[in-house]
C-alpha cells in the first residue's frame, strides 16, 4: 500500500489562519485560527454578523491579503510562500473574485472585461469554455457595451463571467448581490448556482441574506473571526433558525 496522499479534492483551504490588524492595545483579531476547506465543485456561503471577518477571510483566501499566522492554500499552493508578483499571477490565473460593486473597468466593454485576466496573462484561454460562460450570462447581445450602458445586475453577471472565464480553481464573491434588487439578485445567484452545477466550478460567497445563502450547498457561520457553525443543504428557514441561535 502506498502512502495515502492528502485529499486532492480541496479547491482551497485555510489552516489555523489568523489575521491580526494593528498591534498592541488596538490589535484586532479579524480571523482567529480558522480551519476551513472548500471542496471542489461546491458552492459555499459564508454568513456572520457585520465585522465577524467574512471579507477578511475572502481577501486572505483570494490572495488579496496575507494572513498573520497559519496557512492558506489554493489547490496545493501555500500562499504564504509566494512573492508579491507570484501572488498576483495566482490571482490572475487560479482565482476569481467578485466584489459587491465596481467590478468592471469602465473603459473596457463587457467582453473585454470578461477576457481581462486572460489578456493580462497574454493567453487566449479556452474559447469553448469562454463561449459557454458568455452564453450562460445571457448577455450575448450586450457584449460590446461598456459597463455604464449595463444595468447593475448585468454588470454583476459580467463580473461573475469574468471570474469564471479563466477556469479558476476557486471563485470568491463578497456580497455579490448586496447592491442589487431582489430579482436581479436571484438572477445572479441562479447564474452562480448554474456555474457550479453545470460547469463544475467552486464558489465561495459571502452574504447577509438567508435566501441568498440557500442557493449554496453549505453554509459556514463566522462570529468574531471564528467558525462557529456549519449547515449542509440549507434552506432559508434553517439558516434563519441558526442565525437566531448565534445572534442571541
Amino acid at each position, binding site marked *: 500500500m502506498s502512502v495515502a496522499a492528502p485529499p486532492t479534492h480541496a479547491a482551497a483551504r485555510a489552516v489555523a489562519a489568523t489575521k491580526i490588524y494593528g498591534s498592541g492595545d488596538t490589535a484586532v483579531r479579524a480571523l482567529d485560527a480558522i480551519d476551513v476547506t472548500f471542496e471542489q465543485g461546491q458552492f459555499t456561503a459564508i454568513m456572520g454578523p457585520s465585522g465577524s471577518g467574512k471579507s477578511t477571510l475572502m*481577501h486572505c483566501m*483570494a490572495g*488579496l*491579503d496575507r494572513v498573520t499566522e497559519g496557512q492558506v492554500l489554493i489547490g496545493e499552493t501555500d500562499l504564504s510562500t509566494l512573492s*508579491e*508578483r507570484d501572488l*498576483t*499571477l495566482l*490571482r*490572475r*490565473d487560479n482565482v476569481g*473574485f467578485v*466584489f459587491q460593486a*465596481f*467590478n*468592471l*473597468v*469602465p*473603459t*473596457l466593454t463587457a467582453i*473585454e472585461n470578461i477576457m*481581462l*485576466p486572460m*489578456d*493580462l*496573462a*497574454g493567453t487566449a484561454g479556452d474559447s469553448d469554455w469562454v463561449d459557454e460562460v458568455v452564453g450562460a450570462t445571457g448577455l450575448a447581445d450586450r457584449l460590446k457595451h461598456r459597463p455604464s450602458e449595463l444595468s447593475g445586475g448585468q454588470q454583476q453577471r459580467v463580473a461573475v463571467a*469574468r471570474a469564471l472565464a479563466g477556469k479558476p480553481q476557486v471563485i470568491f464573491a463578497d456580497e455579490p448581490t448586496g447592491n442589487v434588487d431582489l430579482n436581479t439578485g436571484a438572477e445572479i445567484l441562479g447564474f452562480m448556482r448554474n456555474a457550479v452545477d453545470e460547469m463544475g466550478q467552486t464558489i465561495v460567497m459571502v452574504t447577509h441574506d438567508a435566501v441568498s445563502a440557500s442557493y449554496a450547498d453549505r453554509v459556514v457561520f463566522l462570529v468574531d473571526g471564528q467558525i462557529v457553525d456549519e449547515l449542509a443543504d440549507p434552506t432559508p428557514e434553517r439558516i434563519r433558525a441558526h442565525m437566531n441561535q448565534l445572534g442571541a
Partner: protein
Amino acid sequence: MLRLGIKSLLAHKVRFALTASTIVIGVAFVVASFVTADSLRSGFDQLAEDINTGTDYTVRGELPFGEITEATAPAVPAELVDDIAAVDGVEIAKGGLFVDGVIPVDGNGEAVTTFGPPVAGTNWLEDESLSQFYLMEGRWPVGGGEFAIDITTFEDDGYDFELGGTYQIVTPTGPREFTLTGAAQFGFPENAGVGAIFSLFDTATAQEVLGFPGEFTVISVRAEAGADIAELQTRIEAVLPDGVEVITAADSEEEFSDATETFIGPFQTILLVFAFIVLFVSMFIISNTFNIVLGQRVRELSLLRAVGATPQQVRRSVLTESAIIGIVASVAGLGLGMLGALGIKSLFNALGASLPEGSLPLTLRTVLWAVAVGVGFTVLASLVPAIKASRISPVAGLSEGTTSEERASLGWKRLVSGGVLLVVGLVLTGLGLFGDFDGATPQLSTLGAGAAITFVAVSVLSPLVARSVVSLLARPLQWIMPISGRLARANAARNPRRTSATAVALTIGLALVTMVSIVGQSLKVSFGDRLASAVNADFIVSVNTQAGLPKTLSSDIRAAGIGTPVGFDFDLVQIDSSGADVQATVVQSTLTAASVSDLDAVVDIGVTEGTLDGFDPQTGLLIHSNVAGDEGLALGDEVDLTFVSGDRRTVTVTAIFDGSAFWSNWIIDSALYEQVATTAFDDIVLVRSDIDDPEAARAAIDEVMTGYPQAVLEDRQEFQESVESSLNTVLVLVNVFLGFALLIALIGIVSTLTLSVFERIREIGLLRAVGMTRRQMRRMIRWEAAAVSLYGAVVGVVLGGAFGMATVAAIPDDIIDTVSIPAAQLVLFLVISVAFGLIAALFPAFRASRMNVLDAIADE
C-alpha cells in the same frame, strides 16, 4: 471662507505644491530678468561715472545723422586741443584716440579677442584722471616701438605677455611689432573696462599707427575749479569748427547709459517674453488642477451649498485658495529668481563677457511685478473653475457617480466660442506678421496677443477632437502591448477635456519650438542657396571682432599674387534722392563699399538694368530693384549721399540689381568710400583664387594672414557651415528657454496624472485584484501619459508648422525666400514628447503600482 480656502489647501498640499511650482518658475523668470537687467544698468552707470571722473567735457566729431552707437564719428584736427586749452576757464584739454580693432598677439601667437567688447588701441596721457588709465606695472611706452597693455590681459593666465617682450599688434595700418613696457588699469579703483582690451601708445605713435595723423578721435577737457559748466560749454563751442561738438560729462554718462540700454533693454524684454510664455503655459496647468480637484470635491461643495453657503461664498473660497497659492508662489519665485540672476551673471562671465561688478538690486518694481504676475496668473487661471464650482447644486453630492468632468458637455457652445476665438487669434497673428506698424513693440504685441488667443482657442476646441485623435494616435499601443496598451489608450481618450488641458501646455511649447526650427531651417536653406548662386569666391575671410579686418589685408592678398580679393565694408549712409523724383525721401540705410570692377570675380549681384562695364568709381551707384521701386529711382538718376564723416557726394545710378546675399541695397566703389570713411576696416573679404590647387591657395592666403591673427579663412563650404553653426547656437539658446515651457508641461502631466490615478484608485485596485502585475500597471500609466503627450505634441507641431510657414512668408524675400521644413527634427520632437510623457508618468505610475489593493477597493 478664508479658513475654508486654507483648509482645502492644506488637505491637498502635494498637488498644490506641484501646481504652484509652475508659477514659481514663471515668477522666478520675471524676477531674474529684472534683477539681471538692473544689475547691468547699475554696473554700467557706475562705470560711466568712473570713466568721466576728472573730465568735464568731451569734444568730438559730430555725426551728421544717426546715433553715436551706430557709426563711428569723424576725427577732429589735433590743433583744436590748443584752441580749447586757450579758452578761459579750461584747466586742461588733451587729445585722445580710441580705435576699435587693434589686436595684440601674445607670445604664443594667439590673438587677444573678446566676445563683443572692443579690442582697442588708444594713447596714454600724463594726466591720469583725464585719461582714466593708471600705470600698474613697468613704465609708460615712449616712441614708435613701444606699447603698454591693460592689466587684465597682462595678468590673464590664458595669454602670454611679459614686460620687455616684443609682440605683434594688428593695427588699421597693418601688423607691427612693439616692445611691451607696462601694464595699465582702466578706471579706478576697479578695472572698469567691462572686458575691453587696450593697447596703449604714446600720442604721436597712436596717431600714426591707428591711422589718424594730425587728428584725435576725442578731446577730453577739464574745467577750472568752480567754473560754470553750462556757460563754459558755450564758450568752448564758440572755438569749435562746424562738425565738431562738445558735450558735458553728464551728457556722456547719459549717452553711455542710453547706449548700454540698447542691449540691456532688449535683453530684459527677451527674458520677460520667455517668462510670460512660461506663465501662460502655467495658467493652463493651474486651471486644470483646480478643475480636477474641485471635481473631486463636488460632494463637499454641494454639502456646503446645502448648509447655506451662497454661490458667491463658494466662488470666493476658491479664489482665496488660488490667491494664497499665488502669494506663496510669488515669494518662492522671488527667491528662485535671485538665484537665477546670480546664475545668469556667472554664465555670462564664464562665457567671457566680464560684466561690471555689482550687487543684484531687488527693486520695489521687481517685487511688485513678481507678486502681480504670480497672483494675477494664478487667480486668472482659477476663474473658470471658481465659477463652475459656484454653480454646483446643493444636491449634486447626492447623486453618486463619476466626477462631473467625465460628463462634460462637448456641445456647439464650445465649437462656437472656440471658433470665434480662433478667428480673432488668427486675424491678430496675421496682422502682426503682415501688417504695417511703426515700431517693433506694437507689432510684437499684436503677434503675441494673436498667438496667445490662438492657443486659448485651440485649448477650447481641442476636447472636441481629443477623443478620436488620441484613439487614433494611440492605436499602435495595443498591438505592441495588448492589454496595457489598450487600457492606456482608453484612459488617454476617456476624458477629452482633461486630456486636452494636460496636452495644451506641451502643445504651446512645441508649437513655439517647431516655429523657431522652421524659420531657422528656412533661413539656413535660403542662405545656403544664395551663397551657392550668388557667391563665386573660393575663399571668405571674416573676423570675430566688432571692428572688422584692416583694409591692408586685401591689398596684401593681392600683392601676394593669389588672385582677386574684394573687401566689403558696410556702413551707415543717408540717401537723398529728392533730385530724382518728386515723391522721393531722405532715408538712412546701410551702404556697401566694394571694388565694383572686381565684383564679378567674387559675387553675382544679378544686374537687371544697366551694366557694371565702365563703372566710374567716383560717381557710380548700384541699387537693388526693391529700393529702385520704393524710392522711384531709375538708371541715370542722381542721388546725394551723406556719409557719417559729414562728407557729401553726388552719385548716379548706373546699374540696378536684384540679387541679395550679404551685401546691402546700395553699393558704391571702395575708391570713393576711402575718401570719406571714418574707419579703415572691411567687414568681410572675398577671394577668387588664381591658384588651381585649393590646398596651395589656402596655404598662400594663410601665409598672408599670419599678420592678421584675428582673421578667419574659410572656403565656401566652411563659411556656410560656420554661419549655420552660429545660427544653431542662437536656435539652441532659444530652445533652452522654450525648454522651460516644456518643463512646465512636464509638471502639468505629472500633476494631472497623479490626480487621475488618485481618482481611479478603485479601478486600479480592481485591475490589481484580477491579476494585473505592478509592471503592467506602470506600463499602462506610462503609455497613457505618452499618448496624451503625443497628442499635445502633434497638435503643437501642426500649429507651429503653420505659424512657422506664415512667419517665413512674412519675412522679406531677401532674408528668407525658401520654406524648408526640418522633417527629421519635427519627428524627433514628437519622439522627445513621447519620452517626456513616459518620464512624467514615472512617479504617478510608481504610486499606482504601489497602491495597496485592499485600500483601493475599500475606498469610498
